[in-house]
């Protein structure tokens, strides 16, 4: 009886599953089409076994569980197809099938143990059922395959037991094969494989990086936002079908593991954003329906089950509230953690683009910042000629006076208008002088890099600023750009390339570390007893992979660095990126307060920062708290400059270089 029913079961499940898969592919293909690159399918196994596994392996227990379960299933399924499906009753194959089922069974046990009291980040519902289905499949497959190796052949002759076993196998096949095609939890394997093959950012799987020493998470540096075609019919993403089809495919690959949720600063602060729920909402929008069947944590403060969507229905506000999108700080912690390599930030910015460019509904202060950027080239609406007011006594050379070119163009960023950051800039100038660096500034010809405009969705203003800055930079000669602002660093270095601006851009931490390496700076020994911790800015670390240089600088100063639990690529955002400080979505806590709590846990008396935004956000935390110092300030305070002092004095004596 088994010999006749098993092949029917297997092939029926395969056929039904395949029908569902075709339907699923149609759902993905509702998105905007791009040229198909079929050859990328070949890349899938390597991307799965290498890149995806690297991310999963950050949690060793889960990685082992997944290898046992998934590996066991794939092997058991392939063997079952040969042995039971096509009826090749080979004892060796049977033995392998038993081994694979056993391996899967052990994995499934670990899955079930985790599911007894699942952590809050995991989704329940069908995902709880999946753990049981894995057991059913592995046990059923093991037992029905026992006769192949000659064990208990008579035992299975009995009708009732055979029926029970068949039911187990059928349950397993229904979950694993039919569920895979028809949107059950196993969908992640099917969609995930294609997602890895057709990922929108193939560079994420590229190991050929120039500077591996600085960056252990090589692939994650494909972080520049995609340029938007401003002549398109509608700008940005209004409805799920406006996404590129690879994006829809990516959303469908989500395993609802909740790693993004547990690292999201906005979620932790009780703001109405949960990256996992957002991706699931995109899936709801793509397939049509309501979010009532979602079995995980929702957006804080927003009830689950009240929203609905369809592929051609507007996303905001029926499916996702605008507040959810504006709460994102674009810190990329979710993207960095996602084992399925889903691009949450791209999706959020795509939807913000529609809200800003088509609906004109940017949050009030964000809209004011954009208006100012349009009118005055800086988000504060200040006179661009006052960009150098803080340096009136410093005699900083202007690049306009150096037609022969300079080594370093110092990009000030909009921090030049902020009194707190002006102290950092003054410290940086002192360091550059002490290191004998040939540098100059653009002065009032410098404009905002366009970072805030772009993250607020105003691609038109960003592109205008980018084009003007690139035109300005093309008029002057310099070897490299150095900036104390990681946002400018990222935009100039990674995002201007798409508009024809290719520069060597260095963050000041990298540049100061190079000065130390070259022996051009001498510092006095740090005072003993003071502990410093370092806060990695998102746009320096996760976006650009610079984790090492700031620590090298601190080491050169001889200070003891106590690392926070969340540092390096897992650093928690200060709450100031992506225009989140402007949209200021209310929550239960403030993100910088939570970050300062991280700092306090290390016992540090000073937190070293490397970004004007982080400085402003962390200094906004009420006293008493550890003091906030930029790396440049720490270095400048420790400088000993026996020879630099007289040169600085001579330069102040040259009055013709002071056009205000």
């Amino acid at each position, binding site marked *: 009886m088994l010999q006749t029913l098993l092949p029917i079961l297997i092939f029926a499940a395969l056929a039904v599953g395949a029908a569902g898969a075709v339907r699923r592919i149609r759902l993905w293909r509702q998105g905007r089409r791009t040229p198909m690159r079929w050859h990328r399918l070949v890349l899938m196994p390597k991307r799965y076994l290498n890149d995806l596994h690297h991310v999963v392996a950050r949690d060793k227990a889960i990685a082992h569980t997944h290898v046992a379960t998934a590996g066991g299933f794939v092997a058991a399924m392939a063997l079952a197809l040969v042995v039971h499906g096509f009826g090749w009753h080979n004892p060796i194959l049977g033995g392998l099938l038993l081994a694979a089922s056993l391996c899967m069974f052990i994995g499934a046990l670990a899955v079930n143990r985790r599911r007894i009291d699942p952590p809050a980040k995991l989704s329940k519902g069908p995902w709880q059922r999946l753990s049981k289905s894995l057991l059913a499949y592995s046990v059923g497959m093991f037992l029905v395959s026992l006769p192949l190796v000659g064990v208990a052949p008579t035992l299975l002759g009995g009708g009732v037991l055979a029926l029970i076993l068949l039911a187990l196998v059928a349950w397993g096949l229904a979950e694993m094969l039919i569920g895979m095609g028809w949107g059950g939890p196993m969908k992640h394997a099917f969609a995930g494989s294609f997602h890895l093959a057709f990922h929108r950012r193939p560079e994420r799987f590229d190991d050929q990086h120039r500077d591996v020493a600085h960056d252990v998470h090589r692939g994650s540096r494909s972080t520049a936002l995609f340029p938007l075609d401003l002549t398109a019919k509608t700008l940005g993403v209004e409805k799920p079908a406006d996404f590129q089809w690879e994006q829809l495919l990516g959303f469908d690959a989500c395993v609802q593991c909740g790693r993004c949720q547990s690292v999201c600063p906005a979620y932790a602060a009780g703001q109405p954003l949960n990256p996992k729920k957002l991706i699931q909402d995109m899936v709801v929008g793509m397939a049509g329906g309501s979010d009532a069947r979602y079995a995980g944590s929702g957006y804080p403060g927003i009830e689950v089950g009240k929203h609905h969507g369809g592929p051609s229905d507007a996303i905001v506000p029926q499916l996702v509230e605008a507040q959810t999108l504006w709460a994102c700080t674009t810190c990329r912690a979710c993207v960095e953690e996602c084992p399925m390599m889903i691009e949450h930030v791209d999706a959020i910015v795509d939807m913000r683009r529609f809200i800003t460019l088509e*609906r004109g509904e940017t949050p009030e202060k964000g809209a004011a910042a954009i208006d100012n950027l349009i009118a005055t080239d800086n988000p504060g609406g200040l006179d661009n000629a006052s960009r150098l007011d803080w340096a009136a006594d410093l005699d900083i050379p202007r690049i306009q006076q150096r037609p022969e070119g300079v080594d370093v163009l110092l990009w000030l960023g909009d921090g030049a208008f902020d009194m707190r950051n002006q102290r950092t800039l003054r410290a940086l100038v002192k360091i550059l002088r002490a290191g004998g660096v040939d540098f100059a500034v653009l002065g009032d010809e410098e404009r905002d890099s366009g970072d805030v405009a772009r993250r607020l969705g105003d691609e038109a203003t960003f592109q205008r600023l980018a084009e003007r800055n690139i035109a300005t930079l093309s008029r002057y000669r310099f070897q490299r750009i150095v900036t104390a602002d990681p946002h400018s660093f990222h935009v100039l270095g990674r995002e201007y390339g798409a508009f024809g601006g290719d520069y060597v851009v260095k963050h000041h931490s990298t540049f100061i570390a190079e000065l130390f390496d070259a022996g051009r700076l001498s510092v006095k020994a740090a005072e003993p007893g003071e502990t410093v911790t370092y806060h990695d800015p998102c746009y320096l670390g996760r976006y650009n992979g610079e984790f090492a240089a700031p620590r090298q600088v601190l080491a050169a100063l001889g200070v003891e660095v106590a690392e926070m639990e969340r540092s390096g690529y897992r650093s928690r955002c200060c709450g100031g990126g992506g225009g989140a400080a402007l949209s200021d979505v209310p929550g239960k806590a403030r993100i910088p307060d939570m970050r300062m709590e991280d700092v306090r846990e290390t016992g540090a008396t000073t937190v070293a920062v490397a970004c004007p935004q982080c400085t402003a956000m962390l200094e906004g935390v009420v006293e008493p708290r550890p003091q906030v110092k930029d790396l440049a300030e720490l270095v400048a305070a420790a400088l000993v400059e026996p020879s630099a002092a007289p040169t600085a004095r001579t330069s102040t004596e040259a009055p013709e270089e002071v056009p205000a």
Partner: protein
Amino acid sequence: MTQPERSRNAAGEARVVALVSSGRHPVSGRAGRAREDARAVEMGLALAGASLHLAHAGDAEDAALPEYLGMFHGLDGAGGPGELSLLPMAAGDDAVPLLATWLEAYGANLVLTGQRAECGEGSGLLPYLLAERLGWAVATGVAAIEHCEGDRITVLQALPQGQRRRLEVRLPCLLCVDGVAPMPRQSAFGPSRRGRVEAVTNVTAEPDTLQAAWQWQPARARPKRLKVVKSTNARDRFKAAAAKSAASGGQVLTDLSSDEAAQKLIDYLRAEKVLPAVQPGEEGQPSA
């Protein structure tokens, strides 16, 4: 923001036009939406929705025009692209006859505009000259439109120190919107790109002969005398700093004949030296 009921009323009864000018940013001097004109457009959009029509007399290449058209979003119904009629004229031409001719031809009966342009002559006289030429009512300092029913429109006029006066005006009329009116909505790139600027060809601008005869000289910024408030009380200092100079020494005159009223005004203007002092020969002549 949008009130469908009201907009249907207004669309039925009134043809609403907003006159827009090129603004100058106070810091950078870059062209953009003018502060008050943008509020006039906002008021028009809240009243008439997408049926609001914009008009501008001047240069077709002005960077401010797309910014006004970018405000045509978030409107009920079809919410088609914004439309702006451009009356081409050079800087030295007179906008008044041009606008008056076009407004009559268009059949507008409710015109919204700012009180004063941010560049060019900026005398703030255009609404008055236009209303005079069209024979319409004019209301200035409009902070809000309350109702628009039939041929009557009720508006709130802004007075100093947050006071408001309710006015009922008969259509057709021209409303000059004050800076205290509700904030204009964001100008979005998509709608600004779709908005249509149509050049009106059947009007010809005439040079502004009066203006051509004027003598121009640069304005001189005059130092303001600081009023130092000597008070140890923060509340008093704040009040002194926040207070607008209240009108003092005025009189309210009622029940005067038009001749008497005119004479009172002339006397006042002479006393303020706005009009030249009385010539000896004119003394005793009846003034009209």
